[in-house]
């Protein structure tokens, strides 16, 4: 019975991770606009090309009249004429009036099958005077289509394709919470019973959790570099994660500093209980009350419900379970090593 269960959760975890990696890399991204060229517009007639990332929003041979581009200045719409549609781009002719409510223009691309694509502050018109757009330049709001995109990941400006990191970076932290929680329970067991078997468990849990925490920091840092522009930003969520990892490193330092002292188990257990309480405060409580660049400020330190749509959920939840089972597997291996080491020591 025990053997069969072992096969199920280990094999199941690997199968889930295989599914997550395949699905995570093969699912297309919904189309979204990334650039407008030129971004500085002069007054009068000129052409603008909007470029998109993700899956193509236009088909080969689509008729130009199906695609409408509208530029928004303030709350008013400026009309354009579609000249060319490509799978990942659209070129329009626009006549820029000398008077605009705002010098910054947002772009909207209305497509027949991919819904409406949006690019905030796409273009700037330095020479425009402030005022209402003349009536002959004003566009009517076109009808919006319902996107028919199939199974695809949501487009988020700036994050773009790296939304797939959700399946790698975030489960590292979930796995760490899970295994540190296990270590917390083990340390409580050690304090209550004083038995060494609980101490061996706590030590294995902290070592495994630290590995996943370090991976979470390293992957988060790489992701931050290409979304926020810096390897590290001083931010409550990020600093909280760093302090948590350092605290748990302190646990290992404490253990090695005490060597073979008989009190090591008890002291380490006290420290570990304290470390887990700090983890909950630093990573789950404090970020909810502070401003942060990191997503998920509305009651959840992960992505909020608007960021995490159904297509992501279908891959994200298996990812959490898959990485969690891999993490638990590594924990059991460390625990078995700890037991062997202990039995050799006490022989």
């Amino acid at each position, binding site marked *: 019975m025990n053997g069969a269960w072992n096969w199920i959760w280990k094999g199941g975890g690997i199968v889930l991770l295989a599914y997550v990696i395949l699905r995570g890399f093969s699912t297309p991204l919904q189309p979204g606009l*990334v*650039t407008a060229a030129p971004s500085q517009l002069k007054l009068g007639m000129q052409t603008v090309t909007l*470029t998109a*990332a993700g899956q193509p929003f236009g088909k080969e041979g689509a008729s130009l009249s199906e695609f409408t581009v509208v530029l928004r200045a303030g709350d008013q719409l400026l009309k354009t004429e579609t000249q060319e549609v490509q799978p990942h781009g659209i070129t329009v002719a626009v006549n820029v009036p000398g008077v605009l409510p705002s010098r910054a223009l947002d772009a909207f691309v209305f497509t027949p099958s991919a819904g409406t694509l949006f690019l905030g502050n796409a273009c700037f018109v330095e020479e425009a005077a402030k005022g209402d757009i003349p009536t002959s330049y004003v566009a009517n709001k076109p009808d919006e289509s319902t996107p028919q995109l199939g199974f695809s990941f949501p487009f988020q400006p700036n994050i*773009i394709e790296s939304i797939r*990191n959700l399946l790698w970076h975030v489960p590292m932290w979930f796995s760490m919470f899970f295994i540190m929680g296990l270590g917390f329970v083990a340390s409580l067991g050690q304090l209550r019973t004083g038995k060494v078997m609980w101490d061996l468990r706590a030590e294995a849990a902290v070592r495994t959790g630290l*590995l996943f925490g370090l991976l979470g920091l390293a992957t988060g840092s*790489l992701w931050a570099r290409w979304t926020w522009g810096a390897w590290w930003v001083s931010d409550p969520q990020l600093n909280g994660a760093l302090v948590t990892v350092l605290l748990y490193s302190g646990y290992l330092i404490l253990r090695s500093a005490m060597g073979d002292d008989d009190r090591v188990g008890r002291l380490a257990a006290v420290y570990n209980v304290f470390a887990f309480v700090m983890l909950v405060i630093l990573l789950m409580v404090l970020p909810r009350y502070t401003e942060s660049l990191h997503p998920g400020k509305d009651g959840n330190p992960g992505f909020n419900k608007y960021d995490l749509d159904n297509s992501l959920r279908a891959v994200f939840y298996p990812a959490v379970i898959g990485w969690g089972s891999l993490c638990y597997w*590594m924990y059991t291996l460390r625990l078995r*090593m700890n037991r062997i080491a202990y039995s050799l020591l006490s022989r």
Partner: protein
Amino acid sequence: MFALTLLNSLEGFFFGSGKAHVVTGVALIILAGLAIALWRMDRRLSRLEAESKESHR
């Protein structure tokens, strides 16, 4: 975004693909981390095996 691809090759590698290569980088970090952890566990297990052989003598 595409103007940034011209800055240098590393920026170009990560930005040029619509940031898809950031995911590649993240996946590689995780695989490398797991590999290092396995390597260290392997070494510790070898030490334990050696110790247990000695104590059986």
